[in-house]
């Protein structure tokens, strides 16, 4: 197989970086013993790798940087780990309830289908136009369910707004202390 220049370089870089597989490593070692083009390229790449490792320098922030950070963090407490306040059992439980409702609905619908009917466009026996929507939505239980959804939505919206307010207050505090 004719190795293109870029292919040789790529394989040698992987070898020099230590990320070649064991098989590839042994193949390259054999090529380095026998092929002078590979040996020449290897020396170039090794030199370049050492140059990069030794030459890259880091910028430094100001002398006060650490102090600034420590002054900043003095205002905060470490937040508890998310795992301590997110109970996965509750989340799985809620998901389980919703899945059960969905599965129950499907079972009810399929159980009520008249599979023996012939010649009709739809296998469903109940007539949608005959459903009394007014009766459904005047039901006490449905109204309670809808009211609960509204209340939960309002509570979540309030939590979202108070978190945002807290963040803005912290920002103002930071800006005024600078």
């Amino acid at each position, binding site marked *: 197989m004719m190795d293109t220049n870029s292919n040789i370089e790529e394989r040698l870089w992987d070898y020099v970086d230590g990320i070649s597989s064991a098989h590839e490593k042994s193949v390259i070692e054999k090529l380095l013993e026998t092929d002078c083009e590979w040996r020449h390229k290897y020396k170039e790449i090794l030199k370049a790798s050492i140059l990069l*490792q030794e030459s890259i320098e880091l*910028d430094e922030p100001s002398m006060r940087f650490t102090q600034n950070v420590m002054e900043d963090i003095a205002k905060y407490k*470490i937040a508890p780990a998310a795992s301590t306040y997110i109970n996965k059992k509750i989340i799985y439980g809620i998901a389980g309830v919703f899945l059960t409702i969905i599965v129950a609905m499907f079972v009810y619908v399929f159980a009520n289908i008249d599979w023996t009917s012939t010649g009709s466009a739809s296998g469903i026996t109940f007539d949608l136009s005959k459903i009394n929507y007014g009766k459904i939505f005047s039901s006490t239980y449905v109204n309670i369910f809808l009211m609960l959804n509204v209340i939960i939505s309002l509570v979540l919206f309030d939590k979202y707004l108070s978190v945002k307010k807290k963040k803005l207050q912290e920002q103002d505090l930071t800006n005024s202390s600078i």
Partner: protein
Amino acid sequence: MTTQPSDNDLIAQVLRGNQQLFAELVKRYQNFVFTIILRYVESREDAEEISQDVFVKAYRSLADFRGDSKFSTWLYTITSTTCITHLRRKKPDVFSLDQENVFARAENLNSGFSANDVEQKSKINMVNNAIALLSPDDAQVITLFYKAEQSLDEIATIMGLETNTVKVRLHRARQRLKEKMEKHFVAELSDLR
């Protein structure tokens, strides 16, 4: 001979209430974090502000560091996401390809070598000046791999990419670095050969 405490030891102590030990972690990684961010923003003041933000975020969510990766990897992930958030909020600066600006910034680097070692300094300056000419993503990959000693998997975690994508990016970044050096630093390169 006293050995320095490991990052995990320091974190455990900070979590127990010894807030002052966090300063040790800041000192260990401030240069890395600052350098990564400086690749993305032109101004040192902005880079310092964002770097500070990174360490504050790291401190506040220290309890979420599980220790299944290196602390440095976790910190650089916060750095990367904070940088991206900042860039999205701010209108991106036009990167100046004015080489004078680039060289002036690169010349501010602390070489750490004696002034007598002219050839060594010239080599170091060439490499760093060439890296300063790369795109921020290319410069970040090279810095994380060669200076921060992150593996390809760790860099993939930091940058939110697949490992193979990082491998390809690293190859391309090196290729582009070589092209920059051959284009802008012909004299220095010929001295090296």
